C-alpha cells in the first residue's frame, strides 16, 4: 500500500478534549470487564500450577478429582493436540504443560466444577508425579555452558557453536568499524548493566468465559488486547475453524502488552468442551504474577567513546535477554533500538536470547527498548559528567536526524528528535534551580511504532448519526479518538458518531491493540471508510440533483455542487442525504480494510528531578516532565495520559519493581504488596509537552504514542540519582538497599 500522504489542514473535531463514549459506563460500574460476565449453568474453572521451577511430569493422576462430587471436567496437557507449528506449540505448552513444568506457576492441570470451593478441593486431589530437575533463573548463569538446559533443540541456525543450549538466537546490527571509532575517542566508558524482569501490572486479572456447544460452535468472552488473535490461537489449539469460534472482547482493565496472547482462554474452552457447560476462569493476582508474561530480564555491556567536545566516535552493546522458558525475539528489538537516538558512524549491537526457568515473556510497552536504552543513556550521561558537558547539548550534537543512517539500518526520514530535545532544553523545568542534594537527569527514548491489519465499517444512520464499528479493544480512550476522526472527515459533530468494538464474527481481522497502532492505523482505516461513505453520499446528492457525481464535492458535512454547477443547488447535509437514503438506493455505509504501514518512529525526552536520602537510599521523584512527538494529538488528554502512564511505569521499573526469584527457583513476590508499583503518594504531577511533527504516513499526521513513554524514565532517574547522590548505579531497580550499598552504607 502506498503511504497516505499527510496534508496540512485546519481541524474542527480532531484535537478537541471530548468526553469518551464509554465514560459513563466506566464511572458508574456498569462497564463489563472480563470477570463480570456470567452464563447459564456456568462452571468455575481453576488451574493447578507447578510448585517447581523445573520438573519432568512423569504422570498426573486425576481420578480422585474426577470422582469428587460437583467436578464436571478435569484437563491436562494430554487432552490438547500435538502441534506442528513452533509458535502455536509454545503458546499451548505455556497454557498447559505437556512433559515438563518449565517454571514456578506453570499450569499442569485444570478443573471445572460447580463452584469455587469444589474446584479448589478438586485441585488438591490431583496427584502430579514430578521429577524435579535442576533449574536456572538468571540470564548470566543460563548463558554459560553447563547450565541446566531449559528446553533442548531450540537454538536457531544463527547461534554460534559452543554456547549453552539455552541460547536460542543471536543477532547483530550496526555499521562502521567501532574499533577505529574508539581509537579516535578522548574517553571511552564501558559498563555492565542488569535489569530485573518487570510485569505490566494491569489491575484486572485475566478472565475468560467460554461456552462450547455440542455442535462444535463456541463463544469466548475475555479481556484481551486482541480478540482476533485470541481466535487465531484458540482455534489452532482447539482444532476449530475460525468461523465456529466467536471471541468477544470485554472491556479491558489494562494490558500494556501483557494481554496480547492467551493463558487461560484455551483452557476455559477445552474445559467447556469436556464438561458440556460454560466455564469461567478468573486468575488470582498470584497467578497473574507467576504465570502470565512479564518482561525479559537482561544483562548488558555498553561501550561508548566520545571526544572532549561531546561527539560520540563509536558505540557498541552486548545484550543478553531472557524471556523465560520459551524462545522470544525481544532482544532483536532491544538491539535495534539501543542507539536509535544517535547519528553514529561506528555502531554495533549484539544480542543473545537465553532460556531460563521463568514464565514466558509477553510484550510490555516498547518491548526490549527500555532495557537497552537505559544502559546506553546511562553511559552517555557518564561521559557528559566526565567532560562536564550539558547532557542535552551532547544529545543534540549527536542526535539522529533526517538522513542519519540509523543504528538498525534504514536511513531516517523526517523525525522529531531534535525538536523534542530543543523543546526540553528551553522548558523552564530544565533551567529551574535545584536545592542541595537534588539531582536532575534526562534521557532520550525511542520506539518504532507499528500499523497493521485494520478493518472499519462506518454506517450512516437515517437520522444523520453515524455508527463506526472497529475491532480493537479500547484500552485508553480509542473509541473517542476514532469517533473524532470519523466526525472530522465527515464534517459533523463528535456527538453524532458512536464507535463500538466488534466481536470476531462482525468484522474482518484486526491486529492486536499493540505497537501504538490503534489511533494511527485504525484511525487511518476510519478516515478511509468515511471517505468511502462520502463518495456514496456525493453520488446520492448528484442523482437527486441530476448532475454528475464528479461535479459534487463534500464540504463542512454536506454535499455541494461544484464546478459548472456551483451554486445551482443548496448544499445537502449528511442528515438530509441520510434521511432519503432508502429512497435513493438504500442504506449508506463506508468500509475499509487494510494492512497499514508507515507508522513513523517516535522519540521522547524526559527530565526528572530527584532527591536521594543518603541515610536510607530512598529516592524521591520531585518533578517530572515528558516531551514527546505525537504527530497530531487526536484527543490531547488521552495522549497526555499515555505519556504520563508510560512515565510512571518507567519510574516504577527504575526504583522498585522487580521479579525476585529465590534459590529454589520460586517467585518470591507474586502480589502487589511486594511487587511494588508506584502508588499515588510516591509521585509528583507528571507534566507533559506534546510536540506535533506530522507523520507523513497518515492523512492527519498521527503517530502512535503508547509506548515511547516507558523508555526514558529508567536512565533519566538513574542519571538524576547519580547527580543527586554522586553514585552511578548499574542495576535496576534502584531499590533503597542497592542505593545505600552503593553509598557505602
Amino acid at each position, binding site marked *: 500500500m502506498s503511504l497516505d500522504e499527510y496534508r496540512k489542514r485546519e481541524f474542527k473535531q480532531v484535537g478537541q478534549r471530548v468526553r469518551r463514549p464509554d465514560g459513563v459506563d466506566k464511572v458508574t460500574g456498569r462497564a463489563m470487564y472480563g470477570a463480570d460476565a456470567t452464563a447459564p449453568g456456568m462452571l468455575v474453572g481453576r488451574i493447578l500450577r507447578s510448585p517447581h521451577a523445573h520438573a519432568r511430569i512423569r504422570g498426573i493422576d486425576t481420578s480422585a478429582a474426577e470422582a469428587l462430587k460437583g467436578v464436571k471436567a478435569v484437563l491436562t496437557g494430554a487432552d490438547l493436540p500435538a502441534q506442528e507449528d513452533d509458535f502455536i506449540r509454545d503458546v499451548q505448552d505455556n497454557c498447559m504443560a505437556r512433559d515438563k513444568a518449565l517454571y514456578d506457576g506453570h499450569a499442569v492441570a485444570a478443573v471445572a466444577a460447580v463452584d469455587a470451593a469444589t474446584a479448589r478441593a478438586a485441585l488438591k486431589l490431583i496427584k502430579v508425579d514430578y521429577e524435579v530437575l535442576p533449574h536456572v533463573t538468571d540470564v548470566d548463569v543460563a548463558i554459560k555452558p553447563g547450565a541446566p538446559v531449559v528446553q533442548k533443540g531450540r537454538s536457531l541456525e544463527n547461534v554460534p557453536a559452543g554456547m549453552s543450549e539455552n541460547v536460542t538466537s543471536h543477532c547483530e546490527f550496526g555499521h562502521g568499524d567501532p574499533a577505529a571509532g574508539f581509537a579516535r575517542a578522548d574517553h571511552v566508558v564501558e559498563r555492565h548493566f542488569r535489569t530485573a524482569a518487570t510485569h505490566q501490572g494491569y489491575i484486572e486479572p485475566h478472565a475468560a468465559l467460554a461456552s462450547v456447544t455440542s455442535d462444535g460452535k463456541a463463544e469466548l468472552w475475555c479481556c484481551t488486547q486482541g480478540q482476533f488473535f485470541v481466535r487465531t490461537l484458540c482455534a489452532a489449539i482447539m482444532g476449530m475453524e475460525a468461523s465456529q469460534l466467536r471471541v468477544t472482547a470485554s472491556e479491558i482493565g489494562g494490558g500494556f502488552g501483557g494481554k496480547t496472547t492467551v493463558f487461560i482462554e484455551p483452557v476455559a474452552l477445552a474445559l467447556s468442551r469436556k464438561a458440556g457447560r460454560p466455564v469461567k476462569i478468573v486468575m488470582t493476582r498470584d497467578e497473574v504474577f507467576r504465570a502470565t508474561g512479564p518482561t525479559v530480564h537482561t544483562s548488558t555491556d555498553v561501550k561508548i567513546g566520545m571526544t572532549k567536545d561531546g561527539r560520540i566516535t563509536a558505540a557498541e552493546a552486548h545484550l543478553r535477554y531472557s524471556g523465560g522458558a520459551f524462545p522470544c525475539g525481544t532482544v532483536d528489538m532491544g538491539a535495534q533500538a539501543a542507539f536509535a537516538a544517535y547519528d553514529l558512524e561506528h555502531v554495533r549491537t549484539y544480542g543473545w536470547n537465553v532460556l531460563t526457568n521463568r514464565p514466558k515473556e509477553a510484550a510490555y510497552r516498547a518491548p526490549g527498548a527500555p532495557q537497552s536504552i537505559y544502559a546506553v543513556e546511562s553511559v552517555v550521561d557518564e561521559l557528559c559528567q566526565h567532560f562536564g558537558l550539558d547532557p542535552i547539548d551532547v544529545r543534540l550534537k549527536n542526535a539522529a536526524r533526517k538522513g542519519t543512517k540509523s543504528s538498525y539500518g534504514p536511513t531516517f526520514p523526517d523525525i522529531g528528535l531534535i525538536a523534542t530535545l530543543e523543546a526540553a532544553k528551553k522548558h523552564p523545568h530544565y533551567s529551574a534551580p535545584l536545592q542541595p542534594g537534588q539531582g536532575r537527569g534526562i534521557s532520550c527514548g525511542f520506539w518504532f511504532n507499528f500499523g497493521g491489519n485494520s478493518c472499519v465499517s462506518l454506517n450512516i444512520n437515517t437520522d444523520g448519526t453515524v455508527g463506526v464499528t472497529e475491532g480493537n479493544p479500547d484500552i485508553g480512550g480509542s473509541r473517542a479518538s476514532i469517533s473524532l476522526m470519523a466526525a472530522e472527515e465527515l464534517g459533523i459533530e463528535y456527538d453524532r458518531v458512536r464507535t463500538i468494538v466488534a466481536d470476531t464474527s462482525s468484522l474482518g481481522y484486526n491486529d492486536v491493540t499493540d505497537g501504538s497502532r490503534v489511533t494511527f492505523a485504525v484511525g487511518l482505516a476510519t478516515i478511509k471508510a468515511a471517505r468511502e461513505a462520502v463518495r456514496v453520499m456525493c453520488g446520492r446528492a448528484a442523482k437527486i440533483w441530476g448532475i454528475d457525481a464528479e461535479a459534487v464535492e463534500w464540504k463542512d458535512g454536506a454535499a455541494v455542487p461544484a464546478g459548472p454547477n456551483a451554486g445551482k443547488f443548496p448544499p445537502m447535509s449528511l442528515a438530509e442525504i441520510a434521511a432519503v437514503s432508502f429512497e435513493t438506493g438504500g442504506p449508506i455505509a463506508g468500509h475499509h480494510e487494510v494492512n497499514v504501514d508507515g507508522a513513523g518512529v517516535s522519540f521522547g525526552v524526559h527530565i526528572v528531578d530527584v532527591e536521594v536520602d543518603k541515610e536510607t537510599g530512598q529516592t524521591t521523584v520531585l518533578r517530572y516532565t515528558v516531551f514527546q512527538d505525537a504527530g497530531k494529538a487526536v484527543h490531547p488528554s488521552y495522549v497526555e495520559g499515555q505519556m504520563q502512564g508510560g512515565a510512571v511505569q518507567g519510574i516504577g521499573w527504575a526504583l522498585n519493581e522487580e521479579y525476585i526469584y529465590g534459590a529454589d527457583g520460586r517467585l518470591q513476590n507474586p502480589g502487589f504488596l511486594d511487587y511494588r508499583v508506584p502508588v499515588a503518594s510516591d509521585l509528583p504531577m507528571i507534566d507533559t509537552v506534546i510536540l506535533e511533527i506530522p507523520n507523513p504516513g497518515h492523512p492527519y499526521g498521527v503517530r502512535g504514542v503508547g509506548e515511547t513513554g516507558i523508555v526514558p524514565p529508567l536512565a533519566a532517574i538513574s542519571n538524576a540519582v547519580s547527580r543527586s547522590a554522586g553514585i552511578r548505579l548499574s542495576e535496576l531497580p534502584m531499590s*533503597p*538497599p542497592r542505593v*545505600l550499598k552503593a553509598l557505602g552504607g
Partner: protein
Amino acid sequence: MRYLAATTAREAAEALAAEAGVTRVLAGGTDVLVQMKAGLVEPDLVVDIKKIPGIATITPEAGGFRIGAAVANAVLGEHEGVRALWPGVVEGANLIGSTQVQGRCTMAGNLCNASPAGDAAPGLVAANAVARIAGPEGERDCPVADIPAGPGKTTLKKGEVITSILLPARPARASDAYLRFIPRTEMDIAVASAAVSLELDADGTVKAARVVLGAVAPTVVVAEDAGRTLVGTKLDEATLAKMAKACEAVCKPIDDKRGTVAFRTKTAGTLAKRAALIAYARAGGAK
C-alpha cells in the same frame, strides 16, 4: 468453616477453647482474610469479636486510655486524646495498610498477627502498654511486649482473646514517635522500624527513654542500651550516633525480598535517631 459473632468475651473464649480444629479471631480481618485467600490458613471456626459490647470503644482510664480490641485504627487516629498523649503509638497504628485497611485493622490484631514488622507493635512496646486478655479461665493483664513469641506466633493460650490494650498515663514533657522504612511512601511492610518514647526534665534533659525496633529480629526488640544512651542528654549528635550504634548492635535481621541484613541494621539505627528527635521535639525539648 463456621462463623460465630460472639456477644461476650466469655462466649468468644469458650468457643475458641472448645474448637478442636483451626480457629481465628476476627476483628478487622485484614490479616486473617489475606491468609485465607492465600490458602495459608483454613479455619474451622472464625469468631468475630466486633459485636461484643464495648470492644470497639476508647475509654479514659487512670490518666491513660483503654483501647478496645476492635477499635479500627482509623477511629484511633481520629481520637484527639490518644493522639495527644501517645502520638507515636497512633502514627504507628495509622501506618498500617491503606485508608481502606485503616477502616478495619486494629492494634490488637496487628499484635496477634505477630509479624516482626507490624507497625503497631514497636510503639505499644515502647509505651509499656498492657493487653487485657479474656480466656476460658477468666481475665488477665499482660505487657504487650510479652505477647509476640516469634513470626506468626504469640504467647496467647488456646481460647485467649485480647479484649483491650491500656495505654498508660504519662507525665508532662513526655512524648513518643514511630518511624518505619518502606521502599514506597505507602502500602509496604516495614523493612525496619523504630519507636522512641521519651520523658524529659524541665530543662530538656532526657529523664527516661525507651527505644524499640521492628523488623530486625523475630519479634520487636527493646534496645535497652540505646535507651540508656539517651538518658541524661539533650540528644546531641554524638549521643544520637552512639544510640544508633547501640540499635545496630541488637539487630538480628534476615535477608529477604524486602531488605538485606546490612540495610535493615543500618536503617534501624537511622530511624531510631530520627524518631528520637521527633519525640524530643514533641515532648517540648528545644534543639
